[in-house]
């Protein structure tokens, strides 16, 4: 119901609306255990750079140069430090960059550490970057070690309003499927019982 990606997408859309028409940008990444093979640290930072490129009216010159350079014979692909540098340079002229990363716990541990260090470096080197990050509680220690000094934190838990909205939707769906099977009284009892249960959490 209230998975972290729902919160992330809500935050992303809200920020996009707020920043429209201003010299600000919203860059994001959804991590997903199903795509772990593509989720190397370099691909993830590259994914952020990719979005900077796609949002800009024309490809930022630093990115263009790196691409041209890569086509030269014998040139290696970009590494994580190159990607970080590219990102910091490419967002340099943007007033505020909101960088949202969802479900960082779904990245394989070794890649995750490298990725988190890269994010840490980005917020240190680019003061115009604001980082929003979600993860399951079991990686809190890891995140705190790297980012807590410069971070606010919120614990995500469904509130009564969320539960009410969710249940109403579910019961409406059921009603459409089998009209008349559930009386209003029954709906109220279900709602009350579950909300009471939730308030004891």
């Amino acid at each position, binding site marked *: *119901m*209230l998975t972290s*990606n729902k919160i992330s997408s*809500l935050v992303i859309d809200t920020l996009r609306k707020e920043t429209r028409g201003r010299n600000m940008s919203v860059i994001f990444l*959804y991590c997903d255990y199903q795509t772990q093979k593509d989720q190397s640290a370099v691909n993830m930072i590259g994914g952020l750079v990719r979005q900077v490129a796609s949002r800009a009216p024309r490809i930022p010159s630093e990115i263009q140069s790196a*691409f041209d350079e890569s086509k030269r014979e014998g040139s290696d692909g970009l590494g994580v430090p190159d990607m970080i540098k590219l990102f910091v340079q490419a967002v340099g002229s943007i007033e505020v960059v909101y960088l949202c990363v969802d479900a960082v716990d779904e990245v394989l541990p070794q890649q995750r550490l490298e990725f988190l260090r890269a994010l840490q470096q980005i917020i240190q080197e680019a003061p115009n970057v604001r980082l929003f990050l979600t993860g399951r509680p079991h990686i809190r220690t890891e995140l705190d070690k790297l980012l807590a000094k410069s971070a*606010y934190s919120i614990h995500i838990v469904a*509130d009564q309003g969320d539960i009410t*909205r969710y249940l109403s939707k579910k019961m409406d769906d059921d009603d459409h499927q089998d009209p008349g099977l559930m009386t209003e009284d029954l709906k109220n009892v279900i709602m009350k019982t579950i909300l009471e249960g939730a308030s004891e*959490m």
Partner: protein
Amino acid sequence: MQRWGNRQSWRGNDWLGTAGDTTSEDMSTEQAPLFPGQANKAPLTPSTGHFTVISSSHSLLTLLAMNTLPTGDRVPRLHGPSQHGMLNVLADHRITNTRYGDSNSNVGNVSNINNTTINVGIEEESSRIQEWLSPLQPDKRHQDVKNGRLEGVGEWVLRRCEFESWCGSQEGSANPALLCYGGQGVGKTYIRYKSISRNNGRC
């Protein structure tokens, strides 16, 4: 951008400059709708609004085809729209001179055509660079997640003072990061569990 058919074959080192020249035979193996010798078929897609060429110039189309294909060289760019029928062609000399003869005569042919609009190359190059940067496409994922969202759910987060401080903060005046913990055991599974355990307790 799938306008040129099978883009997969562009992936990998074959277009990053290690494969040397791209010949017209290479082009014909692409599913690209535009390649030399097919000028009169005009396989262009006006509906995209980016590529409209009214031309019978074989040479021009050859040049355009080169522009859409990866080569080991710097990819030539075409800027449009053209003014007074004159093409603004920034062509790679090697392509125009060694393969297609006199580039000036090619451009000369084209300069007689009015209302020629070319806006190809920039967008193609842009998507090529994006693919080179990363295979991840977060925009797609965002749309999926967004479609599954229930209106109003989670909006309390936006009203939390931590969120407001984080997003409204001036440079250097507040914490640059906002960490959200959760996502496990806060959803429907948890509620179901709670309800069941309550009932069990009563029984």
